[in-house]
């Protein structure tokens, strides 16, 4: 069965050109970039090139790029650094809809005596800017807010938030793991101090990330040891993955237009057609500004895992914020923070596209999903009541 892969916010296919770029750095050019000999030196040159490519995509300068092992590490490093830099400040601000890479860490901080404020969102997933403004004070060490939400695709007004935060003297970090490559980011004209990205969300391999650190921003490393990454992240560089990420960032810059035209058009078609064909559905975050590749739809009266498993039978890969798939027993924290009614939250499905998604694949979903929802509704006591009323 050929897969129809619509789960690109979970991870993406490695671009063939990216794979070719990294291929020689395993069995042939395997030198350590820190070595003095030519054999390591040539790897160092490619790592430097990759650093420039990443910097170019972000409008940063190469010395502001620190390679890490993943998005999660970048998030952890950013927040921990701020707390070490400002030991007297005991307040951290984040949002209720962050990825666990940020949220778990912040919640753990409350046990260590920190004050943690989680800014709320409205029913469309938009950040409460007034709450943010009121929350930042002289005691705030760092504010960490995601650029775009992985479940709904909702984009936060990050520059506006950064301006509010910087005016109060706190550091500003953004988890841009889902945004990089999909929305233009120019850090040269920005107030962002720290930014996280992850390779496997933009067609590079898993297990490579970046922490952007604005020049002049005080920093304490998370990993200590050797002098790699100018002593800001010790450990022998994952050279092949770094080189791959460099190539992926170069391609992401070139393909940004495609994300916002071709991919967005397919996403729009998918959501328009599904909404037209399936009654009692709603787009989570539908009224907010969103990533061009993501749509999260709630289908009332049915449960997400059942939908996913039926889609899976057809080779269609998506994901769900339902309790049964979130590994907990309650629907996703993002949908709950948005106040999505329980009647909808359990039946929410996320489709996330990429530049590899084809019109034919979208047509298949548009054709196959409505009967699946109808079948499950006809089986559900709540669905039947609603069908009767029609």
């Amino acid at each position, binding site marked *: 069965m050929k897969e129809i892969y619509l789960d690109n916010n979970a991870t993406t296919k490695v671009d063939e050109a990216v794979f070719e770029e990294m291929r020689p750095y395993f069995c042939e050019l395997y030198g350590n970039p820190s070595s003095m000999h030519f054999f390591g030196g040539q790897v160092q040159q490619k790592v430097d090139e990759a650093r420039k490519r990443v910097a170019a995509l972000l409008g940063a300068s190469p010395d502001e790029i620190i390679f890490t092992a993943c998005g999660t590490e970048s998030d952890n490093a950013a927040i921990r650094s701020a707390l070490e830099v400002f030991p007297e400040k005991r307040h951290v601000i984040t949002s209720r809809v962050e990825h666990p890479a940020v949220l778990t860490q912040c919640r753990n901080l409350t046990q260590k005596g920190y004050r943690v404020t989680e800014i709320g969102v409205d029913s469309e997933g938009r950040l409460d800017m007034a709450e943010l403004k009121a929350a930042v004070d002289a005691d705030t060490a760092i504010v960490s807010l995601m650029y775009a939400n992985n479940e709904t695709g909702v984009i936060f007004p990050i520059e506006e938030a950064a301006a509010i935060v910087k005016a109060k003297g706190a550091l500003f970090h953004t988890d841009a793991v889902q945004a990089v490559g999909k929305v233009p980011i120019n850090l040269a004209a920005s107030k962002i101090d720290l930014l996280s990205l992850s390779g496997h969300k933009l067609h590079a391999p898993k297990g490579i990330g970046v922490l952007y650190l604005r020049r002049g921003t005080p920093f304490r490393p998370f990993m200590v040891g050797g002098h790699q990454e100018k002593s800001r992240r010790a450990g022998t560089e994952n050279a092949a993955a770094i080189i791959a990420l460099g190539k992926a960032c170069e391609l992401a810059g070139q393909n940004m237009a495609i994300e916002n035209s071709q991919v967005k058009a397919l996403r729009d078609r998918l959501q328009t057609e599904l909404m037209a064909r399936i009654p009692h559905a709603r787009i989570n975050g539908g009224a907010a500004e969103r990533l061009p590749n993501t749509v999260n739809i709630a289908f009332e009266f049915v449960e997400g895992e059942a939908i996913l498993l039926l889609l899976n039978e057809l080779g269609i890969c998506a994901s769900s914020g339902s309790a049964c798939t979130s590994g907990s027993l309650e629907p996703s924290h993002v949908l709950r923070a948005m106040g999505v009614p329980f009647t909808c939250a359990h039946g929410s499905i996320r489709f996330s596209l990429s530049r590899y998604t084809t019109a034919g694949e979208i047509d298949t979903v548009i054709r196959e999903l409505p009967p699946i929802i109808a079948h499950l509704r006809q089986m559900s006591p*709540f669905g039947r009541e609603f069908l009767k009323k029609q």
Partner: protein
Amino acid sequence: MWDYTPTVKEHFLNPRNVGDIPDADAVGEVGSLACGDALKLYLKLDDDKDKIVDAKFQTFGCASAIASSSALTEMVKGKTLDEALAISNQDIAEFLGGLPEEKMHCSVMGQEALEVAIAKYRGHEVKPHDHDHDHGPAYPDQEGTIVCKCFGITDVFLKKVIETNKLTTAEQVTHFTKAGGGCGGCIPRIKELIAEVMGKQESEEPRKRPEKLSNMKKMQMIQEVLERDIRPLLWADGGDLELIDIDGPKVQVAFRKACAGCSSSGFTSRVVEQKLRDLVAEDIVVEEVAA
């Protein structure tokens, strides 16, 4: 990936007996939209009003909830009401070739719907109770007081599930009933209930001490008894113990938290000793050591 058995998948993809029976003799409804799963079960009886001749269901829930409902309706057909009542949630899970442990609550939901339907048919007053949690009770007809506010689960129900499934940890109780899987606020109370049920089981059907034991087997049994029978009792009081060493008949344990250094811990180590003597070997001596 889903780790469902082929039978679960087959019943999910081709569910038997979906629908309703307009002139059903018995109807049982459990769960709610808020909880994430719900089941409505219809039973039709023969003219003598004894045998189940037809069963239908409607289910809102995940694949294993739908498969459990489908299995249940197949299992009850042709059974008398008393025979049907003897079906346990384990039987439903077995019919399906097993369920992942964290999905066992789906089989519990099926068993509960069956019980509610038959109790209602027999005219038992199943009275709804007061509650103050977020979303409706999972099992509106349950007796007892709510323990888990997040999922609306009562103590009576929890004890029943703990007993029939021989559950020993709070995590298992969450897998089987969902209780404890939300805010987690009810977990201490769940541990107490486990301890209560275990204490009761002991007095009802005393386990026999084996005649002769190899050393390996003995050490294994000591560990088992500590895990299953003793630690949950201590947890209920906020305490705990750790097995430090076993040397022949000598068992060294260290008490922690509420037990450590408290005046009753001498008494506690005597209790542990008695339990081990009853269940493992007569010559066991328990010594308390510093942690």
